């Protein structure tokens, strides 16, 4: 239809736009997103609630028609060749769910039949999937009785009935305990090892860091940065110095020294003994002078370290806003928000 398609690309989207209108107010949920995901890789779409992650996935999964731009999944246009896209894609997420009233077995059996498995082939396929996801015993129970982890596993199993080559996982671990979350991660790794392409949306930096080859940061419907985890971190700067004081009453004084030496404003976490500050670009040599300077000012520093910037800081730098409090992996961004 349009330009020739690169067979090595599982997903390619250009200028995707989606508006939602409620009453007189029109919101641009997705505002010109370009995506390129090579076959066999994991792409993490990272952003806070309402950033447009789910809308992007829903457009790529043919559930929503884009208002602008175009997208192809394995070379098939999501609007004009939607059926071919549906045959190739598995979808799991907050908006594509299994039926809670039915049992796990019935849910999978229904999908197997809808995909064309018949009789024994269908039951066999379902039995294998249930076993692989440790759900054999739970198979005869209604899904509404499942725990959070089981629920997510049956959701994943449901999206794998036809062995899709591209998998869209919309916040696959939101609300899971760490153990169940690790299980989901392990499953994703196995699938990717076997050649599947995964597009994963997440609010968790750690998840993107752990699973994704490339990460796109999305905010207010726009992709504001893209790259590997390391590239994104590097784009922020040198990292940050973390300082722990012996005496909490000296924090203001220490902050002043840090500000003078590094030229960046220190962050003051909840812990009254701690402070941290970003190291400016080409400012590595200043860090070496900071510790003696603190000593001269009579401030005892039992702990002093130089850390890589976290993805929290990446997000903060890119958007000027921290990620929502409960999704940050440390307290710095939270404190920053309180301070503003």
């Amino acid at each position, binding site marked *: 239809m349009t330009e020739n398609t690169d067979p090595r690309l599982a997903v390619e989207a250009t200028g995707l736009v989606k508006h939602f209108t409620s009453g007189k107010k029109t919101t641009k949920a997705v505002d010109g997103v370009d995506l390129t995901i090579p076959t066999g890789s994991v792409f993490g779409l990272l952003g806070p609630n309402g950033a447009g992650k789910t809308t992007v996935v829903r457009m790529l999964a043919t559930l929503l028609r884009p208002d602008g731009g175009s997208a192809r999944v394995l070379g098939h246009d999501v609007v004009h060749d939607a059926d071919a896209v549906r045959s190739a894609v598995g979808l799991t997420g907050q908006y594509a769910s299994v039926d809670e009233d039915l049992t796990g077995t019935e849910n999978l059996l229904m999908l197997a039949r809808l995909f064309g498995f018949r009789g024994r082939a269908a039951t066999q396929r379902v039995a294998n999937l249930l076993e*692989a996801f440790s759900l054999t015993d739970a198979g005869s129970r209604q899904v509404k009785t499942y725990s959070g982890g089981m629920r997510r596993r049956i959701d994943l199993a449901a999206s794998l009935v036809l062995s899709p080559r591209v998998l869209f996982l919309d916040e696959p671990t939101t609300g899971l305990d760490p153990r169940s979350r690790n299980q989901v991660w392990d499953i994703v790794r*196995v699938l990717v090892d076997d050649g599947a392409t995964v597009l994963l949306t997440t609010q968790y930096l750690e998840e993107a860091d752990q699973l994704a080859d490339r990460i796109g940061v999305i905010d207010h419907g726009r992709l504001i940065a893209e790259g590997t985890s390391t590239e994104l971190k590097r784009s922020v700067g040198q990292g940050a110095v973390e300082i722990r004081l012996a005496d909490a009453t000296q924090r203001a004084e220490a902050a002043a020294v840090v500000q003078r030496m590094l030229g960046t404003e220190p962050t003051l976490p909840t812990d009254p003994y701690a402070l941290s500050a970003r190291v400016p670009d080409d400012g590595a040599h200043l860090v070496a002078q900071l510790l003696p300077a603190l000593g001269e000012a009579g401030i005892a520093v039992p702990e002093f370290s130089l850390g890589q910037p976290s993805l929290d800081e990446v997000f903060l730098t890119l958007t000027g806003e921290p990620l929502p409090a409960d999704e940050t992996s440390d307290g710095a961004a939270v404190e920053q928000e309180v301070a503003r």
Partner: protein
Amino acid sequence: MSAVDISTTTLREAVALDDRPARPSAVATSLTFGWRALLKIKHVPEQLFDVLVSPVIFTLMFTYLFGGAIAGSTDAYIQFLLPGILVQTIIIVTVYTGYTLNTDITKGVFDRFRSLPIWRPAPIVGALLGDTVRYTIASVMCIGLGLIIGFRPDGGVLGVVAGVALLLVFAFALSWIFTILGLLLRTPNAVMGVSMMVLMPLTFASNIFVDPSTMPSGLQTFVDLNPVSHLVTAVRGLMAGSAGWGDVTTVLISAVVMTAVFAPITMYLYRNRH
């Protein structure tokens, strides 16, 4: 929770697929969704409560409350009332079509269906097929009770079955209105409320309970135009063995028209939902 161990090998083998099965036909797909509707009845039998209880209450109440006053005796009235009450019961049950559809949407189940490579109307057609089972159960309840308290249809078994069949065709067609409401409104309860507002005048301002000849002329016109009245007349005729073919034809035509108009609207909304 017991320890869960996901074995990599088992997972690989379970997911791997050498031959992708051929895509099933539209009929097979719809039947699978019909099977789902039956499973829902099995797992959530409470949903049948209305279907089972409302015909009993309505039939008993109207027969014994008004029978003597309207028709001289309860025995005479039940011959007139029962086909009408049957129609009313089934029509009210059609509301559940929209209600369950909306529940599926709110719970995210429908998006999974929409993401599948299947014949697009199948989830809705299948749900409607499953609903006909519900209608059949309600019909059996209603007629069974009628027979116990004195309903003696002259049309015999054949006439009764023909009456029920015609009613099911009409109900299937009418359901498309409720699928539209199910797709448009935000919550299952809103669907229920709006549907009842539509159904109340359609069922009460009809010839279900009384002969319209005593009604004011404006109301009589409405009753005459009301498709439910034609349905009731046709079902009465079939069950009494004196079917007016004109009424049966009118009902069939209105069923075709309703499907032709409302099914495409439903599918349009279904495809373009967000």
